[in-house]
């Protein structure tokens, strides 16, 4: 009885743990520092975008979290288990960035091999393979050899392989890099579908517009360190708004700096770091001071703007 309670408590703790959490996770190759100390948390059931310029250490981080390379420092947990834990991989799916499956196998055979490796019950293999092939749009090509697949089809196959067995956490390393616009759209739909099902998705990508469209939370890394992390709303809160105003003296115009960082070129006033909710307050203030307001143009900061800004601040 006690044993059962302990197991239930352990299961509850595991379920409550983040999908992924790491503290000062680092990796050195000789003198080269690939990751200088990664600290981040990915809550369960979210789509987590992992961004960074080429060579920032994104793929190394994914390999560390999957236990494919040994960290030289720090700690990490995946689904409540320390990185490198082998049994937890039954609940994890992974699409590597660059890969090549056995060209002499058919797509369905590749999937069956992975069903076996993932320790899925043999009785479920056919159903799993058919479901995954349908999900990635390869239902009518599953019996064909991988050597006859285009690059995009191989990418779809890799995605299907990663989703076998309905994993709780999926690592997708550049899943849309070889896909055409239709393929990218399909992948976005699949990611939305995974989120609806409660699957946690770790999306490693440099396609910022893609990330912006599907991710709940983002971590940006540069030179092996996290330089920003948070929800998209948190990261993009530094939005700006510009106002075309006349009829205010310089002192009155300068007083608008109380709303945010001010940039006044004489005709247009740009206020940075202004949330959307405060725009009416600015309008009221301008009108209240006797100003004549001709235009209000909120300027939404894109993830790309924010990314480049952060890289600039980080010296990148």
């Amino acid at each position, binding site marked *: 009885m006690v044993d059962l309670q302990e197991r239930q408590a352990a299961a509850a703790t595991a379920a409550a743990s983040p999908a992924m959490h790491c503290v000062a996770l680092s990796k050195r*190759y000789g003198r080269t520092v690939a990751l200088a100390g990664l600290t981040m948390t990915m809550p369960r059931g979210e789509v987590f975008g992992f961004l960074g310029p080429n060579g920032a250490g994104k793929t190394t981080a994914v*390999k560390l979290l*999957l236990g494919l390379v040994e960290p030289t420092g720090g700690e990490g947990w995946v689904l409540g288990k320390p990185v490198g834990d082998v049994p937890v991989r039954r609940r994890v799916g992974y699409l590597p960035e660059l*890969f090549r499956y*056995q060209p002499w196998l058919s797509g369905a055979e590749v999937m069956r091999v*992975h069903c076996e490796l*993932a*320790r899925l019950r043999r009785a479920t293999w056919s159903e799993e393979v058919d479901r995954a092939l349908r999900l990635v749009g390869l239902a009518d090509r599953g019996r064909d050899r991988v050597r006859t697949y285009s690059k995009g089809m191989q990418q779809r196959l*890799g995605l299907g392989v990663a989703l076998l067995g309905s994993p709780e956490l999926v690592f997708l390393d550049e899943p849309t890099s070889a896909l055409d616009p239709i393929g990218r759209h399909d992948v976005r739909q699949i990611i939305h579908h995974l989120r609806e099902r409660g699957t946690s998705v770790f999306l490693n990508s440099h396609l910022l517009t893609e990330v912006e469209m599907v991710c709940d939370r983002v971590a940006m890394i540069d030179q092996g360190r996290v330089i920003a992390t948070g929800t998209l709303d948190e990261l993009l809160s530094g939005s700006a708004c510009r106002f075309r105003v006349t009829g205010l003296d310089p002192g009155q115009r300068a007083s608008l700096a109380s709303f945010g960082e001010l940039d006044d070129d004489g005709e247009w006033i740009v206020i940075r770091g202004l949330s959307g909710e405060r725009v009416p307050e600015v309008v009221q203030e301008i009108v209240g001071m006797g100003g004549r307001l001709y235009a209000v143009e909120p300027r939404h900061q894109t993830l790309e703007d924010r990314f480049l800004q952060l890289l600039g601040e980080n010296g990148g």
Partner: protein
Amino acid sequence: MWEASRRKLLIAVLVLTVVVVGATGWAFYQLRYSNGPGGGAQIGEVALRVLAAQVLIFVAFLFTAVLALMSVLVAAPSISGDVESNLALGLLARPVRRSEYVFGKWLGLAALIVLYAAGSSILELIVVDWTTGYVPPRPVELIAYVSGVGLILLTLALVLSTRLAGMAAGFIPLACYFMAWVGGILGGAGEAIGNQGLIITGLVSKLLLPTDGLWRAAVYAMEPASMVATYRAAGSAIAAVPFAATDGPPPAFLVWVAIWFVAVIGLTLWSFRRREI
């Protein structure tokens, strides 16, 4: 197993084997007659047995070399190919231990080599028996020792495959195989003339790569008693000849072969466990 069976290599090897066994069968059939099957006297049974054994030893030598080449060709790109193509990333991100991966590779390839060695050896022995009536005195041991040569080279290529690209992991075992063969001849020559330096060279070579020792054991398994007696009477000079053996392998050597396998497979596990992929 299915991994290699999909490759054209296996089909090519199987077709070539059947062709070679057929060709050697014709050659063995010719041995019975002094002037071909159409005419001439049939030679005596004892002479035929010795002749058949000698030809069989040469055929087996060539077959062992082909088996060695095949073992290296299938094993050398085995792990390195998976790593280079990133196939290993997908495999090892599954609940699979690296030791399971390495053992799986070794067992699959070893089964392929042993099955091929046993199948083609049995086929050849049947053909020899059918054409000449000669059956080697220790056929099971013969198959075991010839398979052992293939397994040793497979194991060596696999351990190198954990660190080196396919080409290098294939070239090195083959070069070692031929050096070990020369080492065996030098060791035998040392025994013949009593040269300690050469004897030690032969011994070290046999310990580092026991392929030549196993080949000599296979030769002994193919020789009829009369041939062994003749070689023993010839004295120590015969030790330098790589196609003649006066004794079977000492038990200590077979124990060493077992230790060699355990050590090199252990090294393969250790090496791949530390490999960053």
